């Protein structure tokens, strides 16, 4: 008994930093946003707490529903593209990387050493201008004979988002594939499975935890994205993130901004629960 209690105490001691940290910097702000979302915004910012469900009713205005819908479509698209591009790369690094494996993974992570903002601006410089870097290269390679419109397009937004979030997909995939037992592959092939069959029936299912973790890591931040649509898309596309930012910084309607934030959080949690249930929660635990 005494031993058990000592252990419990020690565990409590170890867990207290994270509990305090999450409580102060995660739970309290979250509750604050929840309280704000039912409040009433003053004309000049600030908020009166109370129970005004009007903020939530406003979210269901067709204008905002459309923006939320568009955001989810973009986030799903981004997740699928990251998976499509990231999987082969993670697969290649794991199985063909050999002694360069660590170097290759390091290369995937290197962009993190610079701020996302700086990298987004770098893309503005690369894609921008008739005499910009990208256009010069394309013309030098004779892929086009006249300058193309590359920057401030919907394609530029998607490209920027895939670029930014790709590492979040590759790393969990790599972690999942790394644990893969080669002998299973050999066994499948010995039993007469084609390479495609082996991949589809053996390798891919075993890498599902990575797929799930990567998809969630990409999907959540993409749904809240607001920098890239402005910088690379010319703010022609409004995402929920832009809308929330605008409520706080321009319209001074913190209550509505909070209601939007809560709705977004609820939607994301719902989407993820649906997704995890479809592919199986047990897979996630293996990550």
């Amino acid at each position: 008994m005494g031993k058990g209690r000592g252990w419990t105490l020690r565990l409590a001691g170890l867990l207290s930093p994270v509990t305090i940290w999450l409580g102060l910097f995660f739970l309290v702000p979250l509750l604050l946003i929840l309280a704000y979302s039912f409040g009433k915004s003053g004309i000049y910012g600030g908020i009166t707490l109370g129970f005004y469900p009007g903020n939530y009713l406003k979210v269901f205005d067709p204008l905002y529903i459309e923006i939320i819908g568009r955001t989810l479509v973009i986030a799903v698209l981004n997740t699928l593209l990251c998976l499509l591009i990231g999987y082969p790369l993670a697969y290649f690094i794991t199985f063909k990387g050999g002694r360069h494996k660590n170097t290759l993974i390091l290369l995937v992570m290197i962009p993190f050493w610079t701020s996302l903002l700086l990298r987004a601006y770098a893309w503005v410089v690369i894609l921008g201008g008739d005499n910009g870097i990208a256009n010069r290269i394309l013309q030098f390679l004779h892929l086009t004979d006249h300058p193309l419109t590359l920057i401030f397009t919907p394609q530029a937004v998607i490209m920027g988002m895939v670029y930014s979030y790709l590492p979040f997909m590759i790393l969990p995939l790599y972690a999942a594939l790394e644990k893969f037992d080669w002998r299973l592959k050999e066994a499948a092939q010995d039993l007469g499975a084609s390479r495609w069959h082996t991949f589809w029936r053996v390798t891919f299912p075993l890498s599902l935890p990575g797929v799930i973790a990567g998809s969630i890591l990409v999907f959540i931040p993409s749904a809240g994205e607001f920098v890239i649509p402005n910088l690379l898309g010319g703010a022609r596309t409004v995402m929920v993130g832009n809308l929330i930012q605008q409520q706080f910084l321009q319209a001074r309607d913190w209550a509505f901004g909070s209601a939007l934030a809560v709705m977004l959080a609820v939607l994301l949690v719902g989407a993820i629960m649906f997704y995890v249930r479809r592919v199986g929660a047990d897979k996630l635990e293996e990550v």
Partner: protein
Amino acid sequence: MVFQKRISRGDFLRTMGVGAVAGSTLSVLACQPNTTAQSSGGGGSGPEEKALNLYNWSDYVAKSTIPDFQKQTGIEVTQDFFSSNEELLAKLQAGGTGYDVIVPSDYMVTIMIKSDILEPLDMSKIPNFENVGKNYKGLAYDPKNEYSLPYQWGTTGILYNKKELGTLDPSWDPMWDPANKGMIGMLNDERETPGAALYKLGYSVNATEKEQLDEAEAELKKQKPLLRGYFDSTQNRPSVINGDLLLGHVFSGDAFLALSSNEDLDFVIPEPAATRWTDNMCIPKGAEHPDNAHKFINYILGAKTGAELSNYTYYNTPNEASLPMINDALKNLPGYELEPAVFDRLQIIEDVGRATREYSTLFTSVKSS
């Protein structure tokens, strides 16, 4: 309105400021200023300690401004930066900032007065008040200059490629001209851009009537397919310079920076109306060094200081005594020195109270159309 108005001088680092705005969304309420010494000396009785906490737009003082002030007075200045009027407001509302001088734009001065967070100015301590030109005092946002004195001012107009388009008439029409499709950049600002539509329609930039706002919305929805996008002024400037845009909706300081480095460009202040804005010096309630703050405001309104400021920022000075010392190169740029007829048709964006949200919804609806 305004995502960062006055971050204008060029280059990459500068442009970083624009993004920092975006990045700072979540940190609106975070961070205390880097006030170094503010433990003692407050209150009012006795001499103040030699310190001043200035909260300003980034890169909005000349290189010499603060060192010279420190040399003259021995007061040590600590400068912090904000990137939008709303960020400034939110920080002051959160309280306990320790700032002595802040630099809000016109409409924000009204909001701050109404929110009772500004200290009245003591004009007996600011003799240089007389340097302020008559066009820049007694404005609607603070009719008796009880709380604010002007720092810099400028206009909002169109920076365009003269080589490609020829010299344009002063009008908003080129921004709606299908011939310029895909080569137009408007401001990503929920007052300036609806404002441009209101000007074009002949209405006031501070319109609150539903019919007028609806018309403006329709006008902007008509314009949207022609646009490359909605940008910050600091984004439109390089885009016009490097040819991604032929026309950009910009603040005058950005235009003048572009013009001073590129002869192919021109700046026009459209008819029938366009915006002029003013940034102002104010003292927030509870400032710990009000005497030093008055000294600083008086110093900024000095003839030489005012000229140095404008020669650096490329914005206009409200200081008549500074005018003779403004660089000729700057004065000769189109749209820097304005004919009275042009000046008189400029309008000032005012706080519209509850209607702020109408503008916000209008602009969102246009952008997602």
